[in-house]
C-alpha cells in the first residue's frame, strides 16, 4: 500500500473484503467459487495428518486470469487437484458455475506441470481428445482442432507424435488440448516450469495472447513471481503451510500492453511484482524456520 499505491490491494489474514471488492467491480456471477476450503492429508503410516490448506475463500470471474503463488509445499497443487476433482475434500465447498465439485469433469480443464499429452496420439488427436470423448462429429472436431493448432502455433505438426516435439511444444499442445474442450475454467499447475527460460518467456506471451483471444477464466499456479505478475489480473499469495490466502495483489494492466519488451518499464507491473515478491519471501523465511 505504501508506494506502489492504488493498484495494489492488500489484506492480511482475512481476504473476504478484498474478494467483495473484486465482485463489486465485476457485477457478474463468479465462474468458480471456493468457500472455507480446508484440507488435511491423512498419513496411513504415522496416523498424523498433514494440514495442507486452511479456510480458503476465492472467486473467479469470467475472463479473469488469477495466479496463485506461495512457498513450496504450501498447498497450491492441493487446491488445484481439489478443483480439478482429482482429490476428494471434506471441509468447505468448491463449485463451478453453481455446480458443486464432486469429481473430474469437462467443465474444468487442467494443464498439468508434467507432459500429460498422450504419447500414443498425434498432436491433432491429442488436441481433439476432449471433443472425441464428447462424441463431437468428426468434421466439426477437425475444424475446431485446426483452429487451436493454429492458435498455439503448432501448424504443420498435426500428425507428429509427442516424442517428436520439444518440451515447449508439448506444453503448447497441452494448452491447446485444454482450450479445445472449451472448459468453463482452466486450471494450470506450473505449466511452464519444466521448459527453458527463453521458451518460458515466449509461452507466457502466448498465454497472454490466448487469454485475450479466448476470454477464458484461468487459475494459474506458479513458482515464479515474475510470471504471476506478468499474466495475472489478480495474484493470490499463499502463506506457508497450512496454506492460507495471505494477500491479493491486483495488477491492472490491459492485456494488449503485456509483453516482455514493455513490462519491465511498467510501473504497475514493477510495484505489483515487488509487492508479491516481498510477501512470498516473508512466507518462505517462515517455512524455512520451521
Amino acid at each position, binding site marked *: 500500500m505504501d508506494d506502489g499505491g492504488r493498484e495494489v490491494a492488500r489484506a492480511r489474514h482475512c481476504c473476504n473484503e478484498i474478494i467483495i471488492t473484486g465482485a463489486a467491480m465485476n457485477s457478474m456471477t463468479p465462474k468458480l467459487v471456493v468457500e472455507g476450503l480446508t484440507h488435511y492429508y491423512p498419513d496411513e503410516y504415522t496416523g498424523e495428518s498433514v494440514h495442507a490448506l486452511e479456510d480458503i475463500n476465492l472467486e473467479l470471474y469470467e475472463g479473469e486470469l488469477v495466479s496463485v503463488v506461495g512457498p513450496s509445499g504450501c498447498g497450491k497443487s492441493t487446491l488445484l487437484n481439489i478443483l480439478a*476433482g482429482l482429490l476428494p475434500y471434506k471441509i468447505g465447498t468448491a463449485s463451478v458455475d453453481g455446480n458443486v465439485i464432486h469429481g473430474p469433469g469437462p467443465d474444468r*480443464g487442467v494443464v498439468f506441470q508434467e507432459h500429460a*499429452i*498422450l504419447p*500414443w496420439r498425434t498432436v491433432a488427436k491429442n488436441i481433439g481428445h476432449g471433443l472425441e*470423448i464428447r462424441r463431437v462429429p468428426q468434421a466439426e472436431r477437425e475444424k475446431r482442432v485446426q483452429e487451436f493448432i493454429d492458435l498455439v502455433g503448432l501448424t504443420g505438426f498435426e500428425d507428429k507424435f509427442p516424442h517428436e516435439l520439444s518440451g515447449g511444444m508439448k506444453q503448447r499442445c497441452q494448452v491447446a488440448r485444454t482450450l479445445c474442450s472449451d472448459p468453463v475454467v482452466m486450471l494450470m499447475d506450473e505449466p511452464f516450469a519444466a521448459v527453458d527460460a527463453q521458451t518460458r518467456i515466449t509461452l507466457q506471451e502466448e498465454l497472454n495472447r490466448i487469454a485475450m483471444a479466448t476470454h477464458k477464466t484461468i487459475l494459474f499456479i506458479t513458482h515464479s513471481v515474475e510470471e504471476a505478475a506478468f499474466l495475472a489480473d489478480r495474484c493470490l499469495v499463499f502463506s506457508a503451510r497450512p496454506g492460507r490466502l495471505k494477500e491479493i495483489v491486483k495488477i491492472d494492466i490491459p492485456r494488449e500492453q503485456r509483453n516482455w519488451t514493455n513490462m519491465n518499464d511498467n510501473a504497475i507491473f514493477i510495484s505489483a511484482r515487488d509487492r508479491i515478491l516481498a510477501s512470498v519471501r516473508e512466507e518462505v523465511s517462515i517455512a524455512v524456520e520451521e
Partner: protein
Amino acid sequence: MTTAVGNLSIAVQRRFGRQRLRKIILGSIPFAVMIAIWHANTVFDWLPPVFIPPIGDVWEAIFFLQEDCAGFVALVMLDNSCLITTHVFSSIGRVILAAIVGLPLGIAFGILCGMSRTLSKFLEPVGVFANSISGIAWIPLAIVWFGVGWVTTLFIMLNTIFWLMFFNSMLGVRSVAKVYEESVLTMGGSRWDVIKQVYLPGAMPSIITGMRMSMGFGWRALIAAEMIGGDSGLGFMIFTSAAEFKIEEVFLGVIFISIIFMATDKYLLAPLEKWTVERWGLVWRPT
C-alpha cells in the same frame, strides 16, 4: 562382368534399402556358418549320419513323410497319411487357438488387476502360485485329467500363455504415469475411456514383451506337451521319430519349429511393436 555384378548389387540395394540389406546379411551369417559346418560334417565324415544326417536326407524326409498323402482334402483334414502337413498344422493350429484365447484373456485380466487393488489382491497370489509351477510341470496332471491329445496340449499352452500375459499386462498398467489417466478424466472421460485410451496403449510395451515371452515359452511348452501328452504335432513327430532312430525326421521337426517361431516373431510381433510402441516413442530404438 564386374559391371553386371555392380548393377545387380545396385538393383538389390534399391529393392531392399542399404540398411535392410545389411541387417539381412548380418543376420544370415550365423545360419550360413551353421549350415556350412553341418555340410562339412557330412563331407568329412566327422560324426556318423545316425547322429547328424546329411542335409539332403532331411530335405528328402519332407517328401517321404508326405508321400502317402491322399490329395488336398486329406491334407486339409489333417489326415494321418499327410504326415508333415498334419504335424505342422496341428502345432500351428494349437498355437493360434491358444493365442486367440489366452492372449486377450491374459491382457484383460492383467489390465483389470493393474487397475484394481482389490482384484489384484484376489488374483495375484493365484498367479504367483501358477507361475511357480512351470508350464510343462502340469503335463502329468493334464494327462490324468484330459488324456492324451488336443485338450492336454492346449491346456498346457494356455496355462503358460495366460499367466505370463497376465503378469506383464498388470505390471504394464501399473507403470503408466498417473497424469495420463487424470488428464482423460478431466476431459470428461469415463473408466472405459481410460482403459481404452490410457491403460491399453500405455501398457503396450509390457504387453508386447508379454506376447513375445508367452509365445516363446508357450511354443516350447507346446512342443514338450506334444511329446508326452500329444498324439500329433511337431513335438510328437520329433519324439516318435527319435524313438525309431529316424534322425533326419527329428532334424526336420526342429528346423520347422524354429522357422515357424521366427516367422511369428518377425511377421507378427515385430511389426506390431514397430507400429505401436516404437512409433509412440515408448521404447528405445537401436540405431
